[in-house]
Structure formats: C-alpha cells, structure tokens
C-alpha cells in the first residue's frame, strides 16, 4: 500500500526572541521566538539533518529518489539535492531533483513522490524541504521568518499514513518574490496579496476537495494549513470552519517562524507525531496556487515514533543573545576579513575525496580491526597495506578526547572550538564543534556529527562534518 512511510524534521538550535527584534528597532514585536540557522547552516545542511532524522533505523540504500524543496538553494546553477544525496550516503543510481522557487514546493514534492511510487518507477522516495529566507531588516518578515526543515518518505508498503484524495491548482500571481539579485523577500501590498492570493486560493482548493470527497470539516481529526503568519492562519481556520481548539495543527509561528517551503511539511510532521491510527488529516499548502490532500493515519504510525521530529527539536534550543549576533550569524553585516591565510578549495579534491567529505567515510583495517579517519592506504596500527573496508562515521556517536577554544581562527561564532573526537566504534577525527556553548565543552562530552558549510573558498560552497553536543 502506497503512502507516507517515515518522517523527520530539523530545527536549528538557536532561537531569537521577537522581543529582541522589538528592542533592536523600537516599536512592537510579535510574540514568541524564531529559529535561526547557525552561521554554518543553510538549506542543504538543514535538509541533510531532516533527512537523517527521517532515515533513522531505515536502510539508506533503499531510497530510489530524492527531492529537495526550497526557495533558498545555495546554488543558482548546480543541484543542491545532489549534495544532500551525497551527505545522506544514498545510492548512486537514484534520480534526484531540486524543486525550487515556490513556497508550495514541499507539497509538490509530496505529490510527485506519490505519483512516482504509484507509477512503479520508484519504491521509496525521500523528500526533504528546507528554507532559510531573509526578511528586510526591521520588516514584518524579519520578525516572521524562521529557518527549518522537514523530511517525508513516500513508500510502496507499510505506510504510516495513506493519501485518500488530493486537489492541486496553479495560479499565476505576484505576492512574494525575489528576482535574481535579491537577498530579501519582496512583497506587494498585503491587503491585496492575502485576500486575492492566500485566502482565495486556499479556500478554492479546500472547497473543491471537500466537495469532491463529500466531506465536511467535522470529518477531520486535524487540519494542517499553511499560512504566511499567525493572524492569517487564525483567520483561515475560522473561514474554513475548523475548531481552533481541537482540530488545528499549531503553525509553529511562536516557536519557529514561517519556514517558507518547509513550513507545510514541518506542520505535517508535527501533526503525524501526535496522531493516532484512524486519524484523518487535511493538509493544505499554498504558493503559486495550492495543494490540498486528505491523509489517513494507519496502525503503522506507532513504528515511526523514534524521531527527533518537531517535538524533539523544539525542546532542544539555545537563545541567541542579541540582534547583532543574528545579523552576524546570517551574514547580513560586512565584517572585516581575518588576517589569516585565505581558505582554499579544489573541485578536484571535492570529487576525489567525496566519500570522505560527504559521507564521512573512514576505513576499518581487515587485519587488525582498527578504525581510522581519514581513509588510509597503510594501517596506522598494524601497517598492513590496502586491506580495508569502508565504515560510515557520520551516524556514529563519539566523545571529546581533547579540545581548545581558538580565538585566532576566523569564524562567525568565535571562539572556534576545535576538538579531537573518538568514535564509539573506534576511530578518531580532528574537527570543529558547532552549536556548542564554548564554556560547557568538556573532555568526555558525548557528541554527534552534523553536516555543515565550512567556507565558500573558490566560490564553491564547501561542506564537511562537525561535532556537536548530542541534541
């Protein structure tokens, strides 16, 4: 049976309180806080993190297709999903694609994945959706936008939720946009864009689907409805006739913010986390038209609980101290370059070392069993030549053997905590630590690996793994 077979999510550790934005600019602020990607995070790294969560305990070799839905691909030309596939260590003979530019691209990926599996051209399709949008300083969008990611697996057997019906329509409409050179999201006058854009399109999709299925709002356990902000979400719930207290999935505005192309799927993941077998869910997504789907939760849902998901990531957080730190973290300030040698990168080395860089593969000596990273030709322990098997370390836990706090190394989040990490399975890596409180790092601290952007040398986004305290 076809349907959703797994889910996962990712929310960056750091949260900026909206009161702090109010302090920075004067005037009022929306309630709650927003999730902010760290300086070394972007759409690709967040998609990888959500994908890892979704793939927990699943065989990564079984994934046949990968979609990445976003409006903030780090690349204008070059597929971001290929980077995600490499970091997730997926098979080579998969098809991958970025689904970009539309806020609706998460649900578009969902429908394309369902069609792929239904058509028999794939058995398992992994969807990742991530966004990292910027609002102009002092704008409502700056308060409203947050960063995050979700991941959904569509498979041909043992679904945790099936899709009973769906409706889609495309609508050419200019409400939110960025042209090629834009960093910040533009919008037209809000009274126009919400009434003729968001409101009318969502209502059109929901009305059509419910009419076709002969259902009413009362027939649903939960309504998962994308909205640009809290106020429009509340208005839409009322307009569609759902009970705000019992029937509606929290749109995450107070805790995460509007995560763009990722928001719809993040809300869907949050709904699945608390759903029970037999629940019927209405899922509506908006952007350049609308998608509406009806999902039915199955008995299999109980097998998919071992995820950090939305709930786990919401509980694991650290306040961002101030707006200035936010500006630096999101690279909105021009900072003086460090007086240090320039970073280097080589497309040749990225290719040659792809298994080490993206999959964090080390090797294990077949003669003496010693795990070693980076991969060697001659064993560090028994000196046997070329008798190794590969071992993936990106999903292995470790502990800090020693560390330091480097104030000389250039980083947007000084001091740079450098660590020697010993893995539980054996092997050692020398790496950076991220999402850490520098003063709290200790010898023996348990850590896990996280895929991060290292630098942009040679005009290439260069990624590698860092250690972080276990979230």
């Amino acid at each position, binding site marked *: 049976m076809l349907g959703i077979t797994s889910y996962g999510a990712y929310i960056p550790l750091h949260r900026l309180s909206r009161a702090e934005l109010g302090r920075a600019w004067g005037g009022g602020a929306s309630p709650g806080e927003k999730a902010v990607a760290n300086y070394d995070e972007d759409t690709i790294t967040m998609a990888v993190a959500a994908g890892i969560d979704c793939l927990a305990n699943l065989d990564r070799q079984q994934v046949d297709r990968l979609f990445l839905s976003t409006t903030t691909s780090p690349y204008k030309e070059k597929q971001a999903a290929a980077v995600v596939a490499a970091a997730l260590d997926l098979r080579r003979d998969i098809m991958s694609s970025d689904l970009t530019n539309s806020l609706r691209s998460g649900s578009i990926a969902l429908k394309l994945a369902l069609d792929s599996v239904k058509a028999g051209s794939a058995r398992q399709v992994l969807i990742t959706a991530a966004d990292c949008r910027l609002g102009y300083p002092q704008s409502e969008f700056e308060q409203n936008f947050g960063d995050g990611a979700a991941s959904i697996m569509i498979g041909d057997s043992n679904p945790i939720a099936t899709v009973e019906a769906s409706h889609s329509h495309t609508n050419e409409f200019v409400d939110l946009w960025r042209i090629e050179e834009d960093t910040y999201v533009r919008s037209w006058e809000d009274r126009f864009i919400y009434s003729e854009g968001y409101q009318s399109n969502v209502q059109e999709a929901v009305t059509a689907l419910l009419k076709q299925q002969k259902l009413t709002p009362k027939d649903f356990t939960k309504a998962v409805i994308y909205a640009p902000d809290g106020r429009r979400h509340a208005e839409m719930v009322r307009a569609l006739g759902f009970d705000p207290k019992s029937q509606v999935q929290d749109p995450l505005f107070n805790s995460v913010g509007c995560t763009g192309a990722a928001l719809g799927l993040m809300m869907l993941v949050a709904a699945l986390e608390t759903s029970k077998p037999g629940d019927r869910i209405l899922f509506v997504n908006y952007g350049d038209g609308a998608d509406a789907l009806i999902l039915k939760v199955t008995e299999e849902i109980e097998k998919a609980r071992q995820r950090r998901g939305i709930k786990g990531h919401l509980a694991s957080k650290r306040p961002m101290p101030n707006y200035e730190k936010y500006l630096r973290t999101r690279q909105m300030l021009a900072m003086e370059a460090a007086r240090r040698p320039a970073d280097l990168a080589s497309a040749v080395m990225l290719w040659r070392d792809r298994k080490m860089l993206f999959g964090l593969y080390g090797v294990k000596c077949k003669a003496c069993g010693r795990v070693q990273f980076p991969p060697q030709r001659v064993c560090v322990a028994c000196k046997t030549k070329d008798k190794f098997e590969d071992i993936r370390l990106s999903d292995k836990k470790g502990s800090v053997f020693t560390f330091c706090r*480097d104030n000389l190394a250039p980083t947007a989040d000084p001091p740079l905590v450098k660590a020697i990490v010993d893995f539980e399975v054996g092997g050692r*890596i020398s790496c950076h630590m991220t999402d850490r409180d520098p003063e709290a790092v200790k010898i023996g601290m348990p850590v896990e690996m996280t895929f991060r952007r290292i630098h942009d040398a040679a005009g290439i986004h260069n990624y590698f793994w860092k250690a972080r305290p276990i979230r």
Partner: protein
Amino acid sequence: MGSIKDKCAIIGMGCTKFGERWDTSINDLIVEAAYEAFEDAGIAPSDVQAGWVGYTSSSRTGETLSRPLKLDYIPVTHVENACGSGMETIRGAAYAVAAGVYDIALALGVEKLKDSGLAGLPTPGGLGFWHPVADSAITAPALYALAATRYFYTYGIEPQKGKEILAKIAVKNHYNGSMSPKAHFQRAVTLEQVMNAPLVAWPLGLFDCCPTTDGAAAAIICRADLAKKFRSDYVLIKGIGLAIGPGTGSMDTDYDFTHWEETERAARQAYAEAGIKNPRKEVSLASVHDCFTISELIIYEGLGLCRKGEARHEVDAGTFNLNGEMPINSDGGLKSFGHPVGASGVRKVYELYKQIQGKAQLPQRQLKNAKLGMAHSQGGHPGAFHCILTVVGARD
C-alpha cells in the same frame, strides 16, 4: 650505523637581530647572518664549497642563498622540515662534510614573516595531513592547546593551575630574553601579566605563544681535523637525531596528546651518537622548541630530563632557570628571542656555540662551565611532529 660524533666542527656563526625587521628584506637578513658567520670563522665567502638553506615561506630553491651572497655556482640545497628547517641545514651540511665531499659548508636558516600582514604563520593549514575543507581554519596555537587541555586533564591539574605552570615558563624565557641583545622581545614580564593576557587559544594566552619574527642565522661547518686552522675554540657536533612521525596522532586513538613521541625518538638517536646516558647530569644547557609554553613543558619530559607528569615540579623548583641546574632557553627561546621559522634551529645552535665559547655577549647571562649543549626543534604539531635534536660540545 655510524655516527656524526666529532667529525664536524662549527667554526663560525652569525645571527641577525630578530624582530619586526620592517626595513630589511629576506636578502638583507641572509647577508647579515652569513657575513657575521664568515667574519667569525675568518673565511671569505669564496671559501664556502656548498650551501644549505632552510625556510618555509619564500621561493623554493637554493637560489635563495646564492643570489644575495653571489655564491660562485656552488651546490646549494634547499631543505624544509617546517620548524626543523634551520637545524636541517646544519644536519645536511654536517653529513656532507663528514662524508669528506666538502671541507667547508654554509648552513643558513632564514624567514621573513612580517611582510605577510597576517596574524600567525602565513602558511594555510597545518602540516602533514591537511585538507582545505576537512581541516579548515587551522592555527598553530589551537593545535598545541589541544595538548595542554589533555595534559591538565590527564594529570589532574585544574586549568587555572595549569595556566600558572605554563606562565612560569613564559616568565623564565622573557627574563632570559631581556638580556639577549638580538632577541625580538627584551622585556621581562610578571606572572600576573602572563596570567591576565588575552586568550589566543584557550588554555593558551598571548604570552604562552611565541611571536612571528623576521630573522636569519648561519653556521660554517668544517671538517673537524681542519677546524684548528681557523680557531681554537671551535665547537664540535656530538650527535644529531631526526625523527619524522607518521602524523597519525589525530587519527589514532592510541595517541594521548600528552607526550612528544618524535622528541623522544630524536633524543634517543642523538644521545646514542653523543654517548649521553643521563642528559640531566651531562648536558650543560639546552635550547628547545618553546613555540608554545606547553611545548616546552612536555619537552622536559620528552628529552628525559624528568619523569612524565612531573615537569611541573621542575618548573616550580626552577630547575631550568638561567641560574638553575640546567638552563633551558638561556637566550629567551622562541618565546622571547622570536621565531622566524627557518632560522630558529640555527639560532638555537648559535646560543649553545656562544655559551660554550664564553662569548654570551653580556656577563650576567654567561653560563659557567658550559661544555655540552643540545638544540631541539620540532615542526608540525602534537600528533604529527618532525623533531630534530643536535648536540654540540666544546673540543676536548
């Protein structure tokens, strides 16, 4: 295996003023050091039959030496072993002279670091295994700080107490440097100043780190049996040890980050050549690689001057002070004399040479009865060192 012992003599040495030499080029530094050495040896540049030159950040050929000195088409070899590059020139020249190929060779180390405008070394990344993405943002103080953190942990030393042990080494070396006319820094510092200095890479602060420096130093290496033609107080090479580690410390869980394996190996080789059984008793003084104070602390143990984990007690006891049992870094060390990478190894031998000759410039820093000295350089970083140890002694 043979030994270098007593086969070569140092008959002349030169050393530039170390420091921020804004107005001198690398060529000026080379001329300054080489001509002091020529004059000291009483030879003409044309007496030199072969040259070795060590540096890490300039052009990469022997021409670096022949161009400023206008050497006459003689063989010149560029050697590079990171911070061991300078002492490598002495090793190369000594082996060639010992082989009987040349009678007189010039060994010169030089580095011009202050033109780069950068903080720290201008070379990107570390040494040994280095990947521009997997090993980004590498700094030397961080690599040594990893060892300090672990050393404190292993021996149950509270970090603040550990910093105080290290600070005493900085205070000692600054005091020694305050009497060295050619040192980069010639100012004594207090324990309080060192402890309160800004952090560079915790637990290491500003005074735990050597500076980046411009400078050059040179040695004239001569067949031992010819040395007396040039001077009576020549200094003999007694032993040279060189150990290049496999660089596996950051990938091998067996490495403890609290000992310098390469230093121990190089010391074993050099002591065997020199016939040293108990270095603490037999060696008069040492110039060691105190690029960071933690480096010097662990070197005490690595050279066999005290047991592992006990170096801190020797620091408290002042064993290695100028007036202590075995003065270490009597000229201020890298910490105070400065660290022009390629030059430092030769500078360390320069100090031993002058002390053994009784020509340590100022009487208050002249050691009594200095007969045997050892100079130690280690390039790379904890877990991936290239260590060289040279023992020199007075003629019998």
